[in-house]
């Protein structure tokens, strides 16, 4: 921002640094390049996780061995869980879109600690490769992603390396959180108050706090497991005086808040997309910001609802069931506020908007079935059945992965300066919606009928549901590949766009696309309402875009 008068514009891809080629990326401290690197790495790992999901569903097509044996199937669900949870969905939105857009949304040049940010990325990459190496090439780990003791202490497969990997990934997460909290407090452009930040930034801020506070617990837990495995400390193994339920407590003290590390950023994306394509301020902005913090906070005190059958005391079960229901309230408020934002707005059904609306529906199913699992008596029946799988996949696939994909479409023009094919994207969204329902809805029924999860084989009465579900997995995977291909083609062949093709109001849309190295050509002047659509008339919108396009062209011409 020291060159506010300079209109010369080189975008961050074109900038020359002292390093060349791949090193110019791997050693960059530019938050946008780091964001793009996360995008590439995270999507690659996602595709690996997706492959295992595909194989698992294929195995479930018929009872008995279909394509693999039981041991391999057990490895499949462990790999699928570990890769998706630790390498994809937890870093997911914050690492990619948080890195890229947090500084842009608050008018900053970069995050507070750019070098630390790069270090986080390197930790992530190290952890990820260690995990993939150990999981796929070294050992056919079969503990499930939860590593429940005593099984994980006794299994013949080696869990040491994957645990080390999770430990390193945890540090990456903590440091990113630290960076984001500081950035939100210290780097906001002059004139922007905390309660004037876009809701996506609010979401990242709350998430960052969870990352900083909750993640160390999983680190400690992993160290304890390793000490026990290697040196025979009696912590979790009852044969040497430990308590296996203690492990579950420690595991879920992190892993339940981790659910909100996954979900809250997705909520933030929904808020930004709904506001933009309703041409309106989000209904009840402050309530939305507070509910984000409330979810983050309440999320800490509900972990033992994963353990209603674990053998902990009845009092604990009752208290945790009671507390669990309080998470439903701020979450419900968010859903109601999103719908209310549509009221009397100007609804533009772009692909990100369509995805956000479908996400509200799918996520609501995921959230509402959470009530069945929060109530003790029903949970005791449903715990560890396919009902639980359906529940959290409706949340993750319906509410989080869908918003990751929506964010990819929404911010794609800003990240790459090109526009994707909207028609193909919308077909993708519709297929995604159908696929997700066909894949996961039968699991609710199966689960209620008593089909336990992590079963290699099943009773014949469940087959029809498994078949429907497997067909759904093909539709879902096809839609994901369609949307990814569409975006990939657009990087090379998409139509160039101006600074603000969607007509959004937050600060990241005030600079040319892709953004210049230090983001803002002129110091942005924030509005008191991050979604300030006062005086907006959709009929004039095209013109605004046209003028900005021309400005952008002029800047580009001057540059060349």
């Amino acid at each position, binding site marked *: 921002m020291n060159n506010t008068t300079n209109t010369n514009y080189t975008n961050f891809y074109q900038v020359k640094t002292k390093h060349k080629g791949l090193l110019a990326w791997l050693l960059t401290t530019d938050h946008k390049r780091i964001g793009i690197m996360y995008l590439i790495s995270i999507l690659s790992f996602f595709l690996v996780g997706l492959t295992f999901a595909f194989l698992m569903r294929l195995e479930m097509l018929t009872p008995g061995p279909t394509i693999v044996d039981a041991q391999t199937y057990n490895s499949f669900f462990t790999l699928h869980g570990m890769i998706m949870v630790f390498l994809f969905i937890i870093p997911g939105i914050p690492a990619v879109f948080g890195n890229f857009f947090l500084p842009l949304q608050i008018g900053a040049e970069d995050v507070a600690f750019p070098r630390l940010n790069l270090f986080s990325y390197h930790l992530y990459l190290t952890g990820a490769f260690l995990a993939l190496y150990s999981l796929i090439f070294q050992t056919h780990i079969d503990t499930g992603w939860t590593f429940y003791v005593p099984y994980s202490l006794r299994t013949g497969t080696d869990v040491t390396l994957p645990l080390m990997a999770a430990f390193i990934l945890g540090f990456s997460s903590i440091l990113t959180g630290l960076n984001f909290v500081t950035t939100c407090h210290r780097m906001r452009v002059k004139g922007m108050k905390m309660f004037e930040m876009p809701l996506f930034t609010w979401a990242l801020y709350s998430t960052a706090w969870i990352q900083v506070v909750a993640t160390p617990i999983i680190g400690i837990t992993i160290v304890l497991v390793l000490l026990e495995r290697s040196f025979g400390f009696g912590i979790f193994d009852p044969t040497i005086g430990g308590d296996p339920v203690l492990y579950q407590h420690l595991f879920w003290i992190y892993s339940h808040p981790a659910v909100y590390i996954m979900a809250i950023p997705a909520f933030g994306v929904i808020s930004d997309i709904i506001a933009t394509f309703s041409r309106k301020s989000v209904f009840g902005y402050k309530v939305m910001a507070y509910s984000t913090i409330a979810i983050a906070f309440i999320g800490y005190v509900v972990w033992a609802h994963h353990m209603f059958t674990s053998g902990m005391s009845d009092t604990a079960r009752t208290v945790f069931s009671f507390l669990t229901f309080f998470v439903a309230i701020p979450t419900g408020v968010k859903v109601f506020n999103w719908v*209310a934002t549509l009221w009397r707005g100007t609804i533009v059904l772009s692909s990100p908007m369509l995805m956000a609306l479908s996400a509200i*529906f799918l996520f609501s199913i995921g959230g509402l079935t959470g009530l069945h699992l*929060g109530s*003790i*008596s029903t949970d005791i029946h449903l715990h560890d059945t396919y009902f639980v799988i359906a529940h959290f996949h409706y949340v993750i696939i319906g509410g989080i992965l869908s918003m990751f994909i929506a964010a990819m479409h929404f911010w794609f023009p800003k990240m790459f300066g090109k526009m994707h094919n909207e028609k193909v994207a919308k077909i993708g969204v519709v297929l995604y919606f159908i696929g997700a329902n066909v894949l996961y809805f039968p699991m609710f029924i199966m689960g209620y009928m*008593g089909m336990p999860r992590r079963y290699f084989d099943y009773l014949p009465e469940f087959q029809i549901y498994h078949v429907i579900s497997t067909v759904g997995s093909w539709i879902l995977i096809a839609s994901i590949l369609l949307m990814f291909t569409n975006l990939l083609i657009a990087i090379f062949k998409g139509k160039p766009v101006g600074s603000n093709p969607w007509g959004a109001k937050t600060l990241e849309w005030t600079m040319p696309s892709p953004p210049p190295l230090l983001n803002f050509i002129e110091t942005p002047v924030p509005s008191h309402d991050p979604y300030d*659509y006062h005086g907006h008339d959709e009929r004039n919108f095209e013109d605004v875009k046209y003028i900005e396009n021309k400005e952008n062209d002029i800047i580009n011409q001057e540059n060349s």
Partner: protein
Amino acid sequence: MFEQTSRYSSTVDSAMLYITVISVLMLLLITVAMIYFVIKYRASKNPIPTQYHGNVAIEVTWIIIPTLLVMSMFYYGYKDFSDLRNTEKFDEEYFVTAKMWNWDFKYENGTVTDTLFVPVGKTLKFNITSLDVLHSFYIPAFRIKEDAVPGSNGFVVITPEKTGEYDIACAEYCGLNHWNMYKKFIVMEQDEYYAWVESQGGKDKEEVNTTEEKSAESDSNEMSENKEN
């Protein structure tokens, strides 16, 4: 599959139904409003949005109503759960031991079997433990589940009200044959059961085994023959 086997299973099902009905209504409300707004306020019909920043009364309403609803759900779940854990009075006690990958069912007189026989209409307490890793004692038809934790004891209390043959499954992942721990839970007429259990009188698993396998394979009608053994 949704058949009722005890008072407890029907209370769980009604809690389930209660939560489901409220959830479906909520979902319908959200979806219908969403679709209606998207059609009514589409950009081509409503190019100028009305700026509206929120409304305290509305926000308070949709905080309070859901709070009341979820508290009622909590109460339902809690109340049923107390029944499951009521150990004040029970007629029969069983000791369930899980191990990789099998179950042992021990009766009060010392008999050990690997199919679980119980009398109908009596209150039964199952003490559950494990010899190695975590398992979970799950009888879907009775909507009960309790982890088998090595080194400690869990329990559930139920009163079967219908004779028949039901599945016992392991619901906590325990390795290679986790899926292959299905056993039968057989609810018999009381006189039939007591005659059988007396005739077994403290036999351990090996001795009883032949009887077990026969009865597990045959239907409950043939059970009366087995008790004569």
